[in-house]
């Protein structure tokens, strides 16, 4: 079973004299190793990301030019140009503001409902069943399934768009949150119960922070899908009077074959996505899960 060789004399540890040191011994100077230029540049997160973005932009530009089909796929420079004039004329900002407002309401409502649903789910077995059943039933349903109910309940316009947005945010956030809750270590949960926490207070004080990495993922996924849905929904629900959002802007320009403007609208969505990821979500992560040592 063991692999020793019993023939040769076994090795003995080397015997050496003992020693005792004075702990108050003089400090030797410590010199930290310098980093190479590449290494110190590589350490800058924003630089790494900028390089990635530049590479992507270059690929886009080259492919766009090679394709030479501006009606279908404009180049990066055309898009930026269209974006610039859209911003300059104020129309893009106006449309984005309309969209963002709707989006935030829908997103917020979706999160609130997800919080409610997962609290119910984590508090009892039938609650879990309810969440699981509702999620598996409704999550795969496309927005058109909701359309009749949306029209009956909220009419044409923002109300319905928000309803559809909630549908796209709610289930993803709830699934992630509930999954996170269920993965919270038994010990932490027991600690919370030990303090006498129950129901909402247990969820708020223990489960939410303990499951925060999962919840954040859910929020990110929900955010992205809210955008996707919003743009599609603005198209379906049209505009009542003048004030359309980015989705409508994209649709309008598509109809006019102003493809560069279409891509400018999408480019704005991308920019907002990058902003939200790198400033909002990154800050939240730094202040929470990184600081708490929950994610590496």
């Amino acid at each position: 079973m063991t692999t020793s060789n019993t023939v040769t004399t076994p090795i003995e540890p080397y015997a050496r004299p003992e020693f005792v040191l004075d702990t108050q011994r003089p400090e030797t100077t410590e010199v930290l190793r310098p980093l190479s230029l590449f290494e110190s540049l590589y350490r800058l997160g924003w630089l790494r990301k900028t390089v990635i973005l530049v590479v992507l932009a270059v690929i886009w530009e080259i492919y766009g030019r090679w394709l030479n089909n501006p009606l279908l796929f404009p180049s990066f420079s055309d898009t930026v140009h269209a974006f610039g004039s859209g911003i300059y004329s104020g129309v893009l900002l106006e449309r984005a503001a309309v969209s963002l407002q709707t989006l935030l309401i829908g997103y917020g409502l979706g999160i609130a409902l997800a919080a409610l649903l997962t609290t119910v789910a984590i508090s009892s077995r039938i609650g879990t069943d309810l969440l699981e059943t509702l999620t598996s039933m409704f999550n795969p349903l496309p927005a058109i399934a909701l359309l009749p109910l949306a029209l009956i309940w909220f009419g044409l316009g923002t109300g319905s768009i928000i309803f559809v947005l909630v549908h796209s945010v709610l289930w993803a956030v709830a699934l992630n949150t509930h999954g996170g809750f269920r993965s919270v270590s038994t010990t932490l949960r027991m600690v919370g119960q030990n303090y006498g926490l129950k129901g909402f207070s247990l969820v708020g004080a223990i489960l939410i922070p303990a499951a925060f990495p999962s919840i954040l993922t859910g929020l990110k996924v929900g955010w992205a899908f809210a955008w996707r849905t919003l743009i599609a929904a603005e198209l379906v629900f049209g505009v009542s009077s003048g004030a359309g959002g980015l989705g409508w802007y994209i649709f309008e320009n598509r109809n006019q074959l102003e493809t560069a403007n279409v891509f400018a609208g999408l480019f704005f969505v991308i920019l907002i996505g990058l902003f939200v990821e790198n400033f909002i979500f990154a800050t939240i992560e730094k202040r929470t899960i990184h600081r708490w040592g929950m994610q590496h």
Partner: protein
Amino acid sequence: EASAIRVSHGYGILYLPLMVMRDQQLIEKQAKKMGLGEVKTTWLTLDGGNVINDAMLAGNLDVAGTGAPGFVTLWSKAQGIPRSEVIGLGALSTSSLWLNTNNPNVKSLKDFTPKDKIAIPGIKTSLSAVVLQMAAAKAFGPENYAKLDPLTVSLSHPDAVGALLGGKTEITAHFTSPPFSYQEAKDPKITRVLNSSELLGNITLDVVFAPKHFTESNPKLTQAFMAAQEEANAYIAANRKGAAEAFLRISKIKMTLPEVEQMLADKDTQFSTTPDGLMEYVSFMDKAKTIKTRPAKWSDMFVPAFQTRKGS
């Protein structure tokens, strides 16, 4: 009588009368004339027949312009369901649909091979699909109305224009309406295979309709609407430039005035409230078994005021 009315129009030039009504506030004007006082109109821009159907069924919409086949379907399906029944307020517009191709080998419908793909916005059931089927029936005989169906693919008009003009995709033909048809025709690579008005005549493409209960409980408002539409049509006929300006104002489309005027000058583009060729759709759709109740005559589908008109 309601003191508010919600009307929707679509996106293109075919909705011009509604846009003029919106631009010049003709409904408000006519309503006042009828002694209804201040009537508030809410205008919506909706794309696609499904949403219009749904919105109307949900009670979010009072009057809408939509494609003729879609209206026939809704009228027929809603028969006998009290709160859902709809009724036509008149025709809206007619124009020619062009079948354009970038394949030099295709000169007529008979030249299409299985390698060709014809883009239409929604195969089988959309307005273009039905008109194309009717054209096929004329070209290949009534029993072969679906002969081109295997070649059709669903693609929205703008994307189809991009695909047709840019090449590099499988799309070789596009069955479309103005302004897209004009845009394509400007390109020297593009040839026109078919003009729907040449084959089928100037049949009505779009109609205006409302829930039946709306017209019954608001006879005066309905009348005001219809009068406003007549006024708009008269205005368009009399003042092409003004109509073109109204179009640009309402649709916010970035076209030049001459371009719009040129489109309006096309003899195939006409605006009249009297339906033409609706029964052709009906008999065609009846044969294709897509409708359940067939109207005995076209005026069954419209408000009583049309009983005396001589449409088809």
